């Protein structure tokens, strides 16, 4: 049997899903994190508790949601709470183990920018902004960051500090008085980076199959440190790929049927 072929993005999502524990409690954003968590739940972690910031606790979507507030999420949730309750009791209260984050820029201490490219007041690109990220990073016990690795994203200096990773190093984060331990891993399309246990600076610890350390170094704007015992990620298995590829967002809505035709039976 030939090896399954897969895209770099699929490798990235599979690698991220493997980092979730069988009984993890995970706060999820839309996009790749949502794919990774849903893959984990359908693969190795059936008891995974998935939480979306719209207020859905322990949701078990059968199709991939397009937004964090899709009806699929509330219909399959154990409980639906208000947004103030979500952020105050469940997140700030310290009940959520793992937070998943993405961003437009990351620096060597895994600090993140999702606010602007360029100057804050006159930016080249106005990005969506913080959302839940600053407090997810502060109050989840750990965070996992998913990003495609390239020099524009892996930058020497952030244009804006939206979300704190290790700040200026592990010790400086401890000075912030936030209970979460911060980023545990940055999963990219090339490999996995982890904060050094002393300094907190990101170190390349895993390469995905077929990727060289030079490629990862070249995709990073700061001089990237490489672990002495650099490991190789296992390829996605057939079953991981099958589950992942079956995760597609629902495009259907019943709304068109409910709208009357012009001049038809209005109200």
């Amino acid at each position, binding site marked *: 049997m030939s090896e399954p072929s897969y895209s770099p993005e699929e490798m990235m999502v599979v690698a991220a899903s493997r980092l979730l524990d069988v009984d993890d409690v995970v706060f999820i954003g*839309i*996009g790749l994190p949502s794919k990774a968590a849903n893959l984990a739940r359908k693969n190795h972690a059936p008891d995974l508790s998935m939480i979306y*910031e*719209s*207020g*859905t606790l322990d949701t078990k979507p059968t199709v991939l949601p*397009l*937004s*964090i*507030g*899709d*009806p699929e*999420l*509330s*219909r399959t949730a154990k409980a*639906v709470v*208000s*947004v*103030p309750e979500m*952020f*105050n009791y469940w997140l*700030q209260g310290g009940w959520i183990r793992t937070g998943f984050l993405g961003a437009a820029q990351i620096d060597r201490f895994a600090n993140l920018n999702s*606010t602007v490219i360029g100057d*804050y007041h*006159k930016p*080249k*690109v*106005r*990005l*969506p*902004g*913080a*959302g*839940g*990220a*600053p*407090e997810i990073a*502060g109050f989840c016990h750990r965070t996992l960051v998913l990003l495609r690795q390239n020099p524009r994203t892996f930058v020497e200096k952030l244009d*804006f*500090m*939206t979300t*704190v990773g290790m*700040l200026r190093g592990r010790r400086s984060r401890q000075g*912030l*008085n936030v209970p979460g331990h911060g980023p545990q891993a940055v999963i990219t399309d090339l490999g996995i980076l982890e904060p050094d246990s002393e300094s907190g600076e990101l170190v390349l610890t895993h390469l995905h199959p077929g990727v060289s350390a030079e490629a990862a170094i070249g995709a990073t704007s700061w001089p990237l440190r490489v672990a002495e015992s650099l490991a190789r990620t296992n390829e996605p298995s057939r079953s991981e790929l099958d589950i992942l590829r079956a995760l597609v*967002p*629902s*495009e*259907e*809505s*019943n*709304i*068109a049927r*409910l*709208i009357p*035709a*012009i001049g*038809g039976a*209005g*109200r």
Partner: protein
Amino acid sequence: MTEFLELTDAVKKFVKPGCSLAAEGFTHLIPHAAGAEIIRQRIGHLTLIRMTPDIIFDQLIGMGCADKLVFSWGGNPGVGSLFRLRDAYENGVPHEMEFEEHAHAAMANAFAAGAAGMPCAVFKGYRGTQYPEVNPKIKFIECPFTGEELTVIPAHRPDVAIIHAQRADRQGNVWMTGILGVQKEAVLAAAHSIVTVEEIVDEVDEGSGGTVIPRWAVDVVCEARLGAFPSYTEGYYDRSNAFYQKWGEVSREYDRFREWMEHYLVTSDDFVHYLARLKEDGYV
């Protein structure tokens, strides 16, 4: 006591030029019909307050109705950019606006503080981020009991809050279910509130689940069928993910956006007429 008005009259009565307006609904129950009516009446100089501006505020911003936006995540959910918001922020189109930016936790707390009659919200947020440098309303105080540093921001006290809900009864009690975001907090924090509903029924209560906002906390109830589109109303209709995706294309260029809005929304008789036009041309 709650008044029952046509949406046109409710907006005319409470949404005044220059007022502050919170229109809440977290992905679910976004009061789009009310947003469309504000655009039809060309009410300007508004301060718009919403966690996720979404299409409802993208339309108001692009049509020049807003002087200021208070927000915490300004993207098109699951799709990408809100181009009218971006154009206003990056290029001052159609005019320069003020932006007061927060994170979700802060916005949720500011609404909850407003609902509780507090001048400010106290929480643990923004630590280590650059937001306090660009938003002077983010301040830090010392807990008088533990000495811990805490974050404070002013409470949201909008002039008007607008939300959409599943049902109201004939007394004006409002019933809603599904993802409830910060809608109850927005209504209680505001000086006046307008609630649009899918239908008006004889009686509502929490016996079959959901949440009731009692009639004496609501100024006006308006029937607005399909009034959350392209957002959704649980139990009535689904989110139109397809329209959210098409909105990117419609809103990308200012001129095309203005033409589109005039053609479909501004010249429509009411929200259902606007939707019928969208359906006829394949947007839904």
